[in-house]
């Protein structure tokens, strides 16, 4: 298994460049009599903008539930005021609209890299086949997988296909990526809606019904909420669980609320199959999901986030997996930012607030991770010069600092309120305490990702699943479906 320490050299190098050299630079300027207050204010402003965005997003996520405008025109003024009042406190109940058309035929497209995910795939299949509601028109489940060698689990999959006619395993020869697996399966899809799932994702039973509401209202893609189910494993999984609640419960819905556009996150996404077959996935991109998002939005299709459509997934269990997963995400976002930002500015399918918001998500986030780090050399140079940290008398800096810290706590509090699960309070407490260290770590990873991107290094490191061990492929092992098959057959 590739160790994160292979990136240690890059980490040291990038941080010498990003922190070491600027520290000397700022120190020289301080020696020359510069106070550098303007530089400090500029960096603090970066933090302030991000913090305000976090506060706005969290507030939106707290008080709003629907991205689309509610049909309140036919209500009397008192009822309308009462609803607004309740909405302000997040007290309004979830309202299910009537379906204009019954749920059509649905497809689940499950994607797996089997040597890595052979331990968990059967559990996921059982979950989907046994729990997801089926429309009268039916459900199909396609497992698109790749594997470099024949595996005993493939025999199990064939047996499962005999038990469930709606299940089709599809081995994609020559595939090396998730995008290739999905593209290979697209021609087989017969449903009007297609749900894309990763091998570790367990969707909620009513996922298609909820997604269909939005697709019927003119949206083309619905992104659901991903929740960590192995959060009890260690401190890191606890932290990631809260981070995911924050992402899928606060940030992504807020995008929908604020701009009526959001991202497809790669899994637990519900597509109009016709749109999916047209967009397809790009195997040359590190984050093919974000790439598909941009192409979908630029082509005039609409994506919405519904946090009531829940799927559970597994968080990486060790730092090694976490490092490579986050580096791929960071580098993938960089790749997408450099590829699509200019087109967002020029696109007729984005209105001005959407252009502004997507600039915040793309280019601003790229430079934020670099600028945010500059606070360290600035403070280090101050320490070197004075031998201590003299308190600042600048009111603006204090305001920025307070708002920055407040935003982290506020976001955590809102996440606690809107969380899909009732987690122990200590999870939120420790998340609020370590959020700044955690954000710094992610900024460090982003810096290494930028290094890799500029150097054209774009290797995909698979996130280990299941037993979290070095996977040794042993084709001679006996099939393991027997107990599973019995469970299935007794159902």
């Amino acid at each position: 298994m590739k160790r994160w320490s292979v990136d240690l050299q890059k980490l040291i190098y990038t941080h010498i460049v990003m922190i070491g050299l600027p520290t000397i630079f700022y120190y020289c300027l301080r020696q020359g009599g510069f106070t550098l207050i303007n530089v400090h204010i500029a960096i603090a402003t970066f933090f302030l903008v991000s913090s305000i965005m976090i506060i706005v997003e969290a507030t939106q996520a707290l008080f709003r539930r629907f991205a689309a405008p509610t049909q309140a025109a036919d209500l009397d003024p008192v009822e309308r005021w009462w609803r607004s009042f309740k909405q302000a406190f997040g007290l309004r109940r979830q309202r299910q609209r009537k379906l204009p058309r019954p749920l059509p035929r649905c497809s689940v497209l499950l994607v797996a890299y089997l040597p890595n995910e052979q331990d968990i795939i059967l559990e996921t299949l059982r979950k989907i086949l046994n729990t997801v509601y089926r429309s009268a028109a039916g459900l199909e489940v396609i497992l698109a997988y790749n594997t470099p060698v024949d595996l005993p689990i493939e025999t199990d999959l064939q047996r499962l296909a005999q038990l469930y006619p709606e299940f089709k395993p599809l081995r994609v020869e020559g595939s090396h990526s998730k995008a290739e697996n999905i593209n290979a399966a697209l021609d087989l899809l017969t449903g009007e809606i297609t749900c894309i799932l990763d091998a570790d994702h367990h969707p909620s039973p009513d996922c298609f019904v909820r997604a269909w509401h939005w697709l019927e209202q003119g949206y083309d893609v619905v992104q659901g909420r991903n929740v960590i189910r192995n959060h009890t494993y260690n401190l890191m999984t606890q932290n990631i669980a809260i981070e995911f609640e924050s992402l899928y419960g606060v940030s992504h819905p807020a995008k929908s609320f604020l701009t009526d556009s959001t991202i497809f996150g790669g899994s637990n996404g519900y597509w109009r199959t016709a749109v999916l077959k047209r967009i397809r996935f790009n195997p040359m991109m590190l984050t093919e999901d974000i790439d598909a998002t941009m192409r979908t939005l630029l082509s005039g299709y609409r994506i919405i986030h519904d946090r009531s459509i829940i799927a559970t997934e597994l968080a990486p269990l060790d730092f090694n997996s976490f490092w490579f997963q986050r580096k791929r995400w960071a580098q993938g976002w960089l790749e997408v930012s450099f590829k699509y930002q200019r087109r967002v500015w020029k696109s007729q399918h984005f209105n001005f607030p959407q252009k502004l918001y997507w600039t915040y998500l793309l280019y601003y986030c790229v430079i934020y991770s670099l600028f945010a780090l500059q606070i360290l050399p600035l403070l280090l140079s101050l320490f070197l010069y004075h031998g201590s940290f003299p308190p600042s008398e600048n009111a603006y800096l204090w305001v920025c600092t307070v708002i920055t810290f407040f935003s982290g706590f506020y976001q955590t509090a809102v996440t606690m309120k809107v969380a899909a699960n009732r987690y122990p309070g200590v999870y939120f407490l420790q998340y609020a305490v370590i959020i700044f260290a955690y954000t710094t770590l992610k900024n460090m990873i982003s810096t290494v990702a930028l290094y890799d991107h500029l150097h054209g290094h774009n290797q995909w490191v698979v996130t280990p699943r299941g037993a979290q061990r070095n996977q040794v492929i042993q084709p001679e092992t006996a099939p393991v479906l027997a107990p599973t098959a019995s469970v299935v057959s007794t159902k």
Partner: protein
Amino acid sequence: MMNQRGERSPHLAWIDGMLVCSVVMLLLYHVQLRFTGYAYTPQPTGLANNLQQVMVATYRLPDLGWLTQGLGFISWFGFQWIDVLVLVGGFSLVVKLEPQRFLPRRFLGRSLGQVLWPFWTVVWLAYPILWAIAIATKTYFPPAWYLFAGLTFPVVYTYNSDLLLSTSANWWLLSLLLSFVVIFPFLWRLLHRWGRRNLLVVSVLVTVGYRALAVYVLQGHPTYVLWDSPASSQPFALFLAKLSIFVVGMVAGSAYGHRRGPACWPPLGAIALGLGIYSLGFVSQFYYWGWIGSDLLLSAGLALGCMGVMRGLAQVEWLAVGMMTLGHYAYPYFLLYGLVTDRILQFIVQGEPAQYIMALPVMVVGTLILAMVTDYVAPLLRRVVMGLLQDLDYVLSATPKLQQRVWKLHVGDQVFYRGEEGWTVLKVEKLWDEQEFILCQVSDGQRSLWAKEEELKPRGK
């Protein structure tokens, strides 16, 4: 001298050796001149007088034995290696070109990029550092107009780069380099139209004629001489003063392409002839009349001698590898040495002879390390800047460019991938991105990868 990684041939390792030797000698010359306060530059006062002056100046250098004295003596004439760089530049450009594939526009774009990107990298990174040093130490920092000229070069262009001199004295060569890059396609055409001999004769006549004019009519003096003349060194900073040196390099390169000429002579013969020519040039540089042809003789002699030595050394494999490795950094090394050595002399050596001796190797190696950093950063900076410019162009252009498909791809097609032959299309994937675009999985039999359709070309077209 420009960076051309990937184009180096082991057979030409000696060229890299000459480049390394040239830039190190230029560094030593620069350092010695600054340390001694310009104790000696060649004067048009005759051989005997100059030898006397140079011996006096050499004895004033810190003495650690005959080696440092010898090196000190040679370093007074380190300026001559500038002309070796010009000559090697002409040679390298011709040797690396394929006559059938020469496109002036592509050559200009590529060569100007190879000159300017490392320069911009040095300038954009060095100015903030130099500014911080100047602020911290309350020392000299160039006025804003000269900084602007450096940051925007060659937008603010002068034929002798005088606006760059307040930052680094050796940057005067940049305008000369750009001049030769720009006129190279014209000279290349003449080389093939007139032939090597005719071009050589004409260029020598033009250079000698111009230098005679520069000395006797325009009343100037060579760039490396401290002398009181009405036109100063300005006439000698124009490319015409060194045209024949560049052409000699081109002609030698062209002959080398046919396995003829000086680059194919036996090393010892080249050294012997080089010494003879150099001796003539060495003597002539101390006389007015000698200024007319001294640079050509000195550069030709020095280049021949150095080539003989380097070709001999390049027979040893590890030395050849070393030459090729270090030769790659010659250009950024040249750009940096003035900045590095001036600061070390100012802040560390501070006129102390003992410090000077100890700082010499630090300056040589330190400049090399910074040259490596520059070489490493330049492509990254280029990518970022070009990306931002493309963004700007895309946003501002009225009609964004749409990809036009000129051929249809099928599974099994034999294609060129990024100009490389032997690839077969395994899979064709049609995606949508405001318009249809195609990705292909291609294989060369050993590996397969995904490529954009614009990276592929059908075989046979």
